[in-house]
C-alpha cells in the first residue's frame, strides 16, 4: 500500500516538474569575428627614363636595369643626362604576399611631333617576380622596374621626346 501511494506521489511530482522544463529556455553563446586588412596601394616614385641617346645608322637597344645601370647595343650611342628605372612604393597589410603583373606585351613610346614610335619590352623588376614578393613587417615594398627600348635608325626614330604609358598591377596574392 505504501509503495502504491509512493507511485502516485511520484507521478504527481513529475506532472508538476515538467511544465517547468517545457517552458524553459536554453541558451548558448557563440562568437562572431571578421578581420579587416589594409588596402594595397601603389605610388609611382620615378618614371622609367631611358635618357638621352643617338640611334646613329642602324639603331639598336637601350636597356635600363632595375638597379639603375644602362647599357646599349647596336649603333646606339648613349648620351649624358638622367636615366633611371621606374620605382614604385607599395603599401598594404604587413607581411602579406603581393601579386605584381608587369605589361605582358610590348608598349610603344610615341614622338608627339611626328607620331614615330619605339617599342619597350623585356620588363624586369627588383625584387624579381620569379619568387614570392612580400610586404615588410611595416607593410612596405619598393619595386624597381627596368626594360629594354628598341630603337630604329635615325630616319625611323628622328630626334625628339618619346613617351608612353604602361600598366602595372598590384594585388594581394
Amino acid at each position, binding site marked *: 500500500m*505504501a509503495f502504491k*501511494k*509512493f*507511485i502516485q*506521489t*511520484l*507521478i504527481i*511530482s*513529475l506532472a508538476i*516538474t*515538467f511544465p517547468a*522544463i*517545457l*517552458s*524553459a*529556455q*536554453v*541558451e*548558448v*553563446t*557563440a*562568437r*562572431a*569575428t*571578421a*578581420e*579587416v*586588412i*589594409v*588596402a*594595397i*596601394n601603389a605610388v609611382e616614385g620615378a618614371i622609367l627614363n631611358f635618357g638621352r641617346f643617338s640611334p646613329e645608322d642602324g639603331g639598336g637597344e637601350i636597356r635600363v636595369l632595375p638597379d639603375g645601370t644602362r647599357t646599349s647595343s647596336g649603333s646606339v650611342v648613349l648620351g649624358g643626362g638622367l636615366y633611371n628605372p621606374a620605382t614604385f612604393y607599395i603599401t598594404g*597589410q604587413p607581411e*602579406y604576399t603581393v601579386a605584381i603583373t608587369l605589361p605582358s606585351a610590348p608598349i610603344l613610346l610615341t614622338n608627339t611631333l611626328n607620331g614615330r614610335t619605339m617599342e619597350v619590352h623585356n620588363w624586369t623588376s627588383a625584387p624579381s617576380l620569379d619568387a614570392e614578393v612580400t610586404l615588410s613587417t611595416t607593410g612596405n615594398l619598393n619595386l624597381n622596374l627596368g626594360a629594354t627600348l628598341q630603337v630604329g635608325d635615325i630616319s625611323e626614330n628622328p630626334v625628339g621626346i618619346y613617351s608612353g604609358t604602361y600598366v602595372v598591377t598590384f*594585388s*594581394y*596574392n
Partner: protein
Amino acid sequence: MKTIKFFAIAALFLGFSVNAMAQQEGSATATAGATIVSPLSISNSRDLNFGTIVANSENAGTVTLAATSDATSSATGVTMAPGSVSNTAIFTITGDEKRTFNITMPATVTLAGPGSKTMLITLAKNLDDANNSLATGGTSTLYVGGSLAVAANQAAGAYSAEFNVAIAYE
C-alpha cells in the same frame, strides 16, 4: 513508529525522482516518464567567421555569408583577401521531435575592433523564428550567417563580439 515510516518514504521518493530525471528509463516508474518530453538543448560547435576583408579607401561594402553549412563570404564594394577563411556558425539542437520550438537571437551584432571601431552584422539563419520542428531523431542544425557592413576606410584589425542564441519549446 508512524513518524519513522514517513521519513523512509520521503527519502526513497527523492532518490527515485533524481533517477527518473537523469535517465528517463529503467525502472517501472520511469516508464511513466516515456511520455516525458526530452529537454531541449543547444550547443555551438563552430563560431561565425566572416573572413578577411581588404579595406577600401573609397567605397563602403557588404560581406554576405549565406546561412548554410558550407557557405563562404562574398563581398560587394570591398574585396575578400586571397586565402580568406570564412564560415557560418553551427548550433546543434536536440529535443523531442514531436514538439516545435522557437529561436531567440539578436537581429544584429556589433563587432568591436581596434580603437573602438565597430562593424555591424545583420544575422541570418536557416531556421524560422518560431514553429520549427525537430528533425526525425530529435536533432536539428541551426546555421547562422548574415551580412557584414564595412565602412569606407574601415580600420584594419580583428573585430569580434559574442551573441546568444536561445531556444524554447512552444
